[in-house]
């Protein structure tokens, strides 16, 4: 073993002395610095930054590794190395020495990059971020480098000339990159970085990442073993392969590895298929109609310590008016359910067919690990009907975190919130928020029960390292979300907007409200009953925290405070409903989510309200100029594209009209107008005329303004 290590040491020294390795070092550094914007680093999480770095270096590094390694693998196969091959040790350990030394050389070349990477993490997120980032980076990049080296090794053994081997490798890698740039596929080098979270790491993608990396390690090892057997045959070794006990066990191990890799690839494909499949919005729509026919609906689940649903039970009783043939079930694809006689092809069939009386209870038992489909948390463009489903599973749980919403595919009729819910959760989950009516604590687990219909957030449990009080709000943030100053700025903004907003909207004061940052959700939810707001971890306007100076007057108005005000107002307006069109258009600035016709008036109303709220908070907003800009843009396509938000023409012309109404109302009057409009929008689509009539009614009671002055 000592001699083996000594040979590796010499091989490492020989490889490192090549001048091209210094160039490799520089290119790794160049890729690292080109891969991210240092200006935006403070608003990225450690996981995100590490993943992106590993992804960039893995993608380019695999090409470089292929180039560098071929020459080293074939160095001793040139004429003049007869003495080398005549020695037992050289020929026996040749493949393993070469591979180990090549891996070490790659990491040596990566050292300056790793130093810069750790240094940046240290400076931006603190000392504890560096080991976390490094471990993620190493976990992602090691299989990539190992796999590339093993493939290079195999090709070098098979192809006699270095230049031909190199040509085959480079064309192979280039063809792969050219034809398959989607690097999340099984034959890939790094997982996506867009689904990472400071709180749940790779979250729903964790199983993909794990399988992907292990698969590549196994494949790399398998290719190495193949290479070492072939080396024994094709290289000029003097001691050929013999069927010794060790070699036989290596052959058996290789077969086991091959079978294991195939099984892993199949499992990866299965999960990938389920996670990437699209929902059927029609089934959800059909369910929504059925909700009124349900008399009682009870959902009970028990979570184990890993976040798996170990037992689930749904009991449904329809009222006697129920006369439907079938009701589609939308239980998550990862959950396995028992098939009682009243379930057929994923549908709950009527009593006529099953012979069940509508008065009888129907029970569905299920268990398994939820598979969170990508469309439910992806920020990519989706069909509006799919986007409207929001976080469709309404559930995410792993060993460290749990999030459960009232509506979701964790129970079979996901669109109808159950009347009664019972969730049993191990005590290892630190619950930071629950809306449960009763909590029964046991030795190992606690039972949370809800005795009324609950649509919003039921429970959030997680290792929130940051627990602090800010302006009377309890704030729960994940650790290393962004740099400390940016975190503080964000928390201050939310607590201030919520404070002013609560008074503006006359929301009854609560003992102590909560601001909880939650992964996977795409819009904020404000539960006014207990003054808790759940904000998405991936804030689409986080870049505004960097405070870039905008010359444009309109962009100045739409600053971070206004955006937070918009977020809070939309969360309050929609409460537990999903409003992807409002959120996408007003906050994310996305054009593809065209506003639903029922929101043609509410979108400009909320936009103006956010500006008003922002102004009340002391922001310098030239309201006249903003309203004039919108007024001029209406009917002028050239000016329309310059607007900070993309609205339909009907809504653009409503902004100045609503603005004029709003400017005539004092602070409290406008707050009341907003509250009453919201109540109205719950019953029917709100229109500009409706807003105007409400404003007239409110302004006639002018005691509101005299009662208390402006804040």
């Amino acid at each position, binding site marked *: 073993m000592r001699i083996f290590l000594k040979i590796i040491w010499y091989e490492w020294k020989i490889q490192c002395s090549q001048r*091209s390795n210094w*160039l490799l070092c520089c290119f790794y550094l160049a890729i690292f610095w080109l891969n991210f914007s240092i200006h935006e680093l403070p608003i990225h999480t450690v996981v995100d930054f590490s993943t992106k770095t590993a992804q960039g270096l893995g993608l380019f590094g695999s090409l470089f590794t292929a180039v560098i390694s071929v020459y080293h693998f074939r160095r001793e196969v040139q004429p003049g190395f007869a003495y080398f091959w005549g020695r037992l040790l050289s020929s026996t350990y040749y493949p393993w020495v070469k591979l180990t030394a090549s891996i070490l050389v790659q990491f040596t070349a990566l050292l300056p990059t790793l130093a810069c990477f750790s240094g940046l993490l240290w400076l931006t997120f603190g000392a504890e971020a560096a080991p976390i980032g490094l471990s993620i980076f190493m976990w992602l990049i090691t299989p990539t480098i190992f796999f590339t080296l093993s493939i290079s090794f195999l090709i070098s053994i098979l192809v006699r000339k270095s230049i031909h081997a190199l040509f085959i490798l480079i064309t192979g890698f280039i063809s792969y990159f050219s034809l398959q740039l989607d690097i999340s596929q099984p034959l890939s080098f790094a997982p996506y970085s867009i689904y990472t979270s400071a709180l749940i790491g790779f979250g729903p993608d964790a199983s993909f990442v794990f399988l992907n990396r292990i698969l590549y390690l196994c494949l790399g090892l398998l290719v190495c073993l193949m290479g070492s057997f072939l080396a024994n045959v094709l290289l000029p070794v003097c001691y050929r392969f013999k069927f010794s006990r060790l070699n036989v066990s290596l052959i058996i191990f290789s077969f086991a590895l091959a079978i294991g890799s195939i099984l892993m690839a199949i499992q990866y494909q299965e999960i990938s298929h389920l996670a990437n499949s699209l929902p059927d919005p029609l089934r959800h729509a059909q369910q929504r109609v059925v909700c009124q026919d349900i008399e009682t609906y009870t959902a009970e689940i028990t979570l184990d310590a890993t976040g798996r649903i170990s037992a689930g039970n749904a009991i449904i009783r329809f009222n006697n008016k129920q006369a439907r043939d079938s009701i589609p079930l939308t239980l998550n694809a990862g959950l396995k359910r028992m098939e009682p006689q009243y379930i057929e092809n994923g549908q709950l069939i009527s009593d006529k067919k099953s012979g069940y009386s509508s008065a009888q209870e129907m029970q569905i038992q299920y268990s398994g690990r939820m598979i969170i489909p990508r469309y439910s948390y992806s920020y990519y463009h989706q069909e509006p009907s799919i986007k409207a489903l929001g976080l469709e599973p309404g559930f995410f749980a792993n060993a460290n975190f749990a999030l459960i919403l009232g509506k979701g595919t964790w129970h079979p009729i996901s669109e109808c919130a159950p009347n009664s819910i019972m969730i049993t959760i191990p005590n290892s989950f630190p619950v930071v928020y629950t809306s449960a009516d009763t909590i029964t604590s046991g030795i190992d687990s606690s039972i949370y029960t809800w005795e009324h219909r609950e649509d919003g957030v039921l429970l959030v449990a997680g290792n929130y390292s940051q627990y602090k009080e800010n302006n009377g709000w309890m704030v729960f943030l994940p650790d290393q979300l962004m740099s400390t100053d940016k975190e503080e700025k964000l928390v201050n903004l939310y607590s201030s907007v919520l404070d002013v907003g609560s008074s503006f909207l006359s929301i009854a004061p609560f003992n102590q409200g909560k601001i909880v940052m939650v992964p996977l959700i795409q819009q904020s939810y404000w539960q006014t009953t207990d003054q808790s707001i759940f904000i998405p971890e991936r804030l689409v306007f986080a870049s505004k925290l960097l405070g870039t100076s905008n010359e444009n007057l309109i962009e100045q108005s739409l600053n971070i405070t206004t955006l937070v005000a918009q977020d809070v107002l939309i969360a309050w307006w929609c409460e537990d409903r999903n409003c992807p069109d409002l959120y996408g258009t007003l906050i994310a600035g996305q054009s593809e989510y065209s506003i639903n016709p029922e929101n043609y008036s509410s979108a400009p109303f909320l936009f103006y309200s956010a500006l008003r709220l922002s102004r009340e908070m002391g922001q310098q907003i030239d309201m006249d100029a903003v309203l004039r800009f919108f007024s001029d843009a209406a009917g002028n396509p050239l000016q329309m594209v310059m607007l900070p938000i993309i609205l339909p023409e009907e809504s653009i012309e409503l902004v100045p009209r609503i603005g004029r109404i709003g400017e005539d109302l004092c602070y409290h009057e406008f707050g009341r107008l907003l509250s009453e409009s919201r109540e109205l929008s719950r019953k029917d689509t709100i229109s500009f005329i409706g807003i105007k009539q409400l404003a007239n009614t409110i302004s006639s009671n002018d005691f509101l303004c005299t009662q208390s002055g402006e804040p």
Partner: protein
Amino acid sequence: MIIPRVLENPRKLTQLVALVKYDLQSSFPGVFWVLVGYLALSYSLITEGSLDTVERQTRIAFLMEVVSPILAGFFSNSALMGDVVAGSIIFSATRQSMTKLWVRRLITVNAAILVELIVFHLIIRLTYPGIGQFSEVFISTPSCLLVSCLISLFTLLFMDMNAGYLAGLFFWSANFIGSKAILSIFGPKPYIFLWWASLKYPPQLEQFWVNKALMLVFTSLLFILCILVLNVKDKTLNLSKM
């Protein structure tokens, strides 16, 4: 100068063909089969039935403008270094300077790529008469020359073929894999795959000839640098005067 003389004397033409063949063979053994394979693969890729006209044009641009430079770079890297690695450069260098040898082989390799592009273009015209213009062949040539010169420069500076491959691949992959980022940072003028990019991300065609002219300037600069480096090496070896 050489070409009229060659045309006057058919024997010299035969000698020239033999020399070109030898130079190509010494740059990359089996170059002919690689080019034939490339043409066959390209043909199968562009005749794929599911493609519409724009997709087919984009694929043609990809094969001609993006893939050809890396082939040219790969072949020209070993044009001189093949002899250096094999230890036979002393023999060549005593008869003519390394600079001349490198220039001749570089031109030969790029001429071969040009011929291959012309053949590819003719195949496209025969298969899809409505697609492609002859000028497209020459649109790809500056990219091929640029990548060839860049790879050669790094190889000659470090006297290590891997250094050239690394530099070439870094430059090529940054422009191809990171196309969007490069275009957004540096704009379309210095972008080396503008024809392909203009089909993929439509807006920049008006910059086309500025881009190609700039690339030729860069190529000339690299070419001169390579010659300077080779002259230094020649003087160090003091072989060309022997």
